[in-house]
């Protein structure tokens, strides 16, 4: 029997892709163009925020609470001021007049509790790491030394760490909020949920725990604020995903006029949601720079990052699914508790709500009931972490689908196939009320089965079960979709989100024929400079190398909504395309004038306007750019230069999807899980740069697999983060992760003219349930029905022991 070698197939497909891209030099969109970003990154000629040194610059360090919950009875900075190199020190009370609370922009229910969140605590500290004072010194070591000399008196209070306990009353995280309940969001849709469940042949209920995760962008956060005190002007450099949002919010928080603040996101070393925020230290750097009239730098250490930068996930999910005995799904109930932590950061409350619509996934059903309670606890605030709400939803759904398959004694892929939305049914409005733009679940699934050798592995699994092998084989499936391209402003408004979701671009042709694209997106590893160059080069007909992209500076790209939620290409990339098309339309008018022809008689191809029928009469777009710049002879009334803007606000989200298959070997004596093979077939619509898309999928897979097998932020009952360094929090390294086999199907989105969908989060969303389903599948016949994440050797071993009734 000849065995399919999935790696060979996928690698051949990728080679074919590469060849196709290289063959057609004139076409950039769809080709594997190597990244323009790389030259500085592989040579160390980068500008991370912490690299910035300014004349007279001082270093700020933050005194943080060692207690999870305590009343502050005194803060004395006088001894710190005596330390060598120390220039200033401020308590929370000292700075209280300088700012209002940090913003939260998503009012998910009208009665949501929004407690005040000052950059430095003044009355109580509410989590370990809550800031109480700052010291400012001439260098980073002196600032760190001086922290020890700030004396803070605390009156300890009981900490509330567990969400269910928090809801039972007792300790209140916020004295001015009557309970620890932040909000109770309810969204029943479709048929009556209770009647649906009562009438169903089969109901399966499960509780899943989404453990808390630490995003761990490898570049820690860093801020530099440079004031021009005399003019009350500030330039703030920050390792942020959201320079535009940050500028608006800093203006509101500190009362500094918006036009007097310039925010720059220089090179930014990863974010994954953790830099999608407005942080205390950003406001503090600005107000301290304002007070002292000198540039201020703050850079966090990794351990500080684990306390002071947002965490992800942390939900308890009670899920129920109802079906008829033939396997038709009738309804889903998803009732969540979501841990907010001690305060609300920028979109803390919105994270579970981004999942609210996704607990039906790709499946058709009649009834749907989503409910989520947001809960305050004495822990670091949570917020968006890669996927934000959709990984949680996809995990719960894909896990319970497997449980339902067991209950019905159905093959798990057949159960999925029976219920998913068929290709011919798109666009399809789900029971949760979203209209999915396009999809072909059949094609992606068929391709994945072929690459994975699904039937062969099932046979091997049966043999190993029959033999009672020590190492058992498990197969996990995840057929996912997600909503991405955070976008339609109208929809965001209806969800009470605090802003729109459009994106803007400017395209200009310089006198020498080179092109500049200005984008409102703010990349931090995604390769926008390369992809936007590809899009613009194709529309303008100029060489890829002749395009540069400007981003991440509110003075140079004044309008933008930044980068998160897999939105940049599907919103910002389209803005680039539309702005370039507008530029070509203006160029056409100039060319017609130059060629003394009617506009309609001109063809535009390969960067040149030609008169139809007499192709020797032509002007390149570079000729036109120079003519528009010189402006010696332009059509009457035309403005000089070639430059155009576009702001794109799509009609709908886009919905990538795919099928992921995972095979694991599980050692039943040690509990060790090893991923043997992983196949991901994703459909992200049309692809601008296949190499970048593959890279995004790989990285997403790594983070999803990390949740399934390795990572968990753990607090003790007193609210201490006991996984507080990279020693204790296990971020997987190269030996811990498998070789991924990736491929794509291509079903264009109908939400935008390029037909693209987002890809940044897909891998993370899909992979966690694929891996955990595989682990359970390996052990199901031994009586294991669930393992709590991460599926560490200890957890797997204990699950086996419990299933054995404690017998070894």
């Amino acid at each position, binding site marked *: 029997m000849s065995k399919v070698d999935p790696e060979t197939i996928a690698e051949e497909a990728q080679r074919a892709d590469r060849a196709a891209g290289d063959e057609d030099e004139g076409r950039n969109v769809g080709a594997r163009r*190597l990244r323009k970003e790389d030259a500085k990154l592989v040579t160390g000629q980068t500008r991370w925020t912490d690299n910035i040194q300014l004349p007279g610059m001082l270093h700020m360090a933050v005194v943080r609470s060692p207690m999870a919950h305590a009343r502050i009875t005194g803060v004395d900075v006088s001894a710190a001021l005596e330390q060598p190199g120390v220039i200033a020190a401020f308590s929370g009370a000292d700075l209280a007049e300088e700012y209002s609370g940090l913003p939260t922009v998503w009012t998910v229910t009208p009665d949501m509790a929004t407690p005040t969140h000052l950059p430095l605590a003044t009355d109580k500290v509410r989590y370990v790491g809550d800031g109480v004072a700052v010291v400012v010194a001439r260098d980073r070591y002196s600032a760190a030394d001086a922290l020890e000399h700030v004396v803070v008196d605390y009156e300890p209070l009981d900490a509330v760490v567990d969400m269910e306990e928090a809801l039972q009353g007792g300790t209140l995280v916020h004295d001015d909020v009557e309970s620890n309940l932040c909000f109770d969001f309810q969204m029943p849709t479709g048929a009556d949920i209770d009647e649906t469940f009562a009438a169903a042949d089969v109901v399966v209920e499960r509780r899943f725990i989404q453990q808390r995760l630490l995003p761990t962008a490898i570049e820690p956060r860093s801020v530099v604020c440079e004031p021009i005190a005399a003019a009350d002007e500030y330039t703030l450099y920050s390792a942020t995903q959201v320079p535009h949002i940050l500028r608006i919010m800093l203006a509101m928080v500190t009362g500094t006029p918006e036009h007097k603040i310039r925010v720059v996101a220089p090179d930014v070393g990863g974010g994954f949601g953790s830099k999608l925020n407005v942080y205390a230290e950003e406001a503090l750097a600005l107000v301290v720079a304002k007070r002292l009239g000198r540039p201020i730098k703050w850079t966090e250490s990794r351990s500080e990052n684990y306390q002071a930068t947002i965490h992800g996930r942390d939900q308890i999910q009670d899920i129920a699914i109802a079906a008829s005995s033939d396997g038709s799904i009738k309804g889903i109930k998803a009732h969540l508790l979501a841990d907010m932590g001690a305060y609300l950061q920028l979109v803390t409350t919105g994270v579970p709500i981004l999942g609210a619509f996704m607990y039906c996934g790709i499946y058709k059903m009649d009834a749907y009931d989503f409910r989520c309670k947001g809960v305050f606890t004495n822990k670091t605030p949570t917020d968006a972490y890669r996927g934000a709400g959709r990984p949680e939803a996809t995990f719960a759904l894909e896990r319970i689908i497997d449980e339902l398959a067991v209950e019905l004694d159905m093959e798990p892929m057949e159960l999925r196939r029976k219920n998913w939305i068929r290709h011919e049914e798109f666009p399809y409005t789900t029971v949760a009320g979203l209209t999915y733009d396009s999809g072909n679940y059949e094609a992606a699934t068929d391709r994945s089965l072929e690459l994975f050798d699904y039937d062969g592995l099932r046979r091997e699994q049966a043999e190993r079960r029959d033999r009672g092998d020590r190492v058992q084989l498990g197969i996990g499936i995840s057929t996912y979709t997600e909503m991405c391209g955070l976008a339609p402003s109208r929809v965001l408004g209806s969800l009470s989100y605090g802003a729109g979701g459009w994106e803007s671009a400017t395209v200009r042709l310089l006198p020498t024929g080179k092109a500049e694209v200005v984008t409102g997106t703010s990349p931090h590893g995604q390769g926008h400079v390369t992809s936007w160059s590809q899009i613009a080069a194709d529309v303008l007909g100029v060489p890829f190398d002749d395009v540069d992209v400007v981003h991440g500076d509110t003075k140079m790209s004044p309008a933008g909504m930044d980068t998160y939620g897999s939105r940049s290409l599907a919103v910002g990339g389209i803005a680039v395309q539309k702005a370039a098309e507008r530029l070509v339309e203006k160029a056409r008018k100039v060319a017609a004038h130059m060629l003394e022809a009617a506009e309609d008689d001109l063809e535009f191809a390969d960067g040149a306007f030609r008169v139809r029928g007499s192709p020797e009469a032509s002007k390149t777009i570079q000729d036109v750019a120079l003519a528009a710049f010189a402006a010696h002879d332009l059509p009457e009334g035309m403005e000089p230069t070639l430059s155009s803007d576009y702001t794109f606000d799509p009609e709908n989200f886009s919905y990538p999807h795919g099928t992921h298959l995972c095979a694991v070997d599980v050692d039943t004596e040690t509990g060790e899980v090893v991923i043997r093979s992983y196949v991901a077939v994703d459909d992200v619509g049309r692809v601008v740069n296949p190499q970048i898309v593959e890279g995004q999928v790989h990285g997403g897979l790594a983070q999803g697999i990390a949740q399934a097998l390795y990572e968990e932020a753990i607090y003790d009952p007193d609210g201490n983060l006991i996984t507080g360094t990279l020693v204790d929090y296990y971020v997987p390294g*190269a030996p811990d992760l498998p070789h991924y086999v990736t491929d794509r199907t291509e079903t264009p989105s109908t939400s935008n003219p390029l037909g693209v969908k987002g890809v940044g989060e897909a891998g993370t969303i899909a992979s966690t349930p694929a891996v955990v389903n595989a682990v359970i599948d390996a052990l199901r016949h031994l009586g294991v029905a669930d393992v709590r994440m991460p599926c560490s050797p200890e957890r797997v071993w204990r699950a086996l022991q419990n299933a054995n009734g404690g017998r070894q």
Partner: protein
Amino acid sequence: MPRISVRIDGTTYEDEVEARLLFVHYLRDKIGLTGTNVGCDTSNCGACTVIVDGHSAKSCTLLAVQADGSEVTTIQGLATQNGSGRRGDWHPLQTAFHTEHGLQCGYCTPGMIMASVDLLRHNPDPTDEEIRHGLEGNLCRCTGYQNIVAAVRTAAEEMRSRAQTEGAQQ
């Protein structure tokens, strides 16, 4: 304060330094070689890896005084000894990380490349598994490692083929 003399990327620096100054802060803050990054405070992430006297070292675990008398190469000195970083002068690892898309945000990349320099010096023809184990002290959060492994493999091939050509010429 102790006085040190250290040759970094082809230039000799002589400085008085605090005894407790970490070598990575000496590089970044004192002499402005900011190509070498700091990603943690527990020596786990490897972003700060440089070559000291021919061996890879995490420059956050080294005091500046310990580097006294050493010859150091950072990512900024890898392309050429004077560090212009022009593409034609790139080390095969720099080229391969670029062509194989072995980086995204690029923050771990200097450390990843310097650790790979050492790995390939000890093992010019590593298997994928040997590459993965050789880089276990370096964390990347963007790439999922697959393209890093491919980059190191590609660079190894290129370096072996160059060595062969040079051998044939001699």
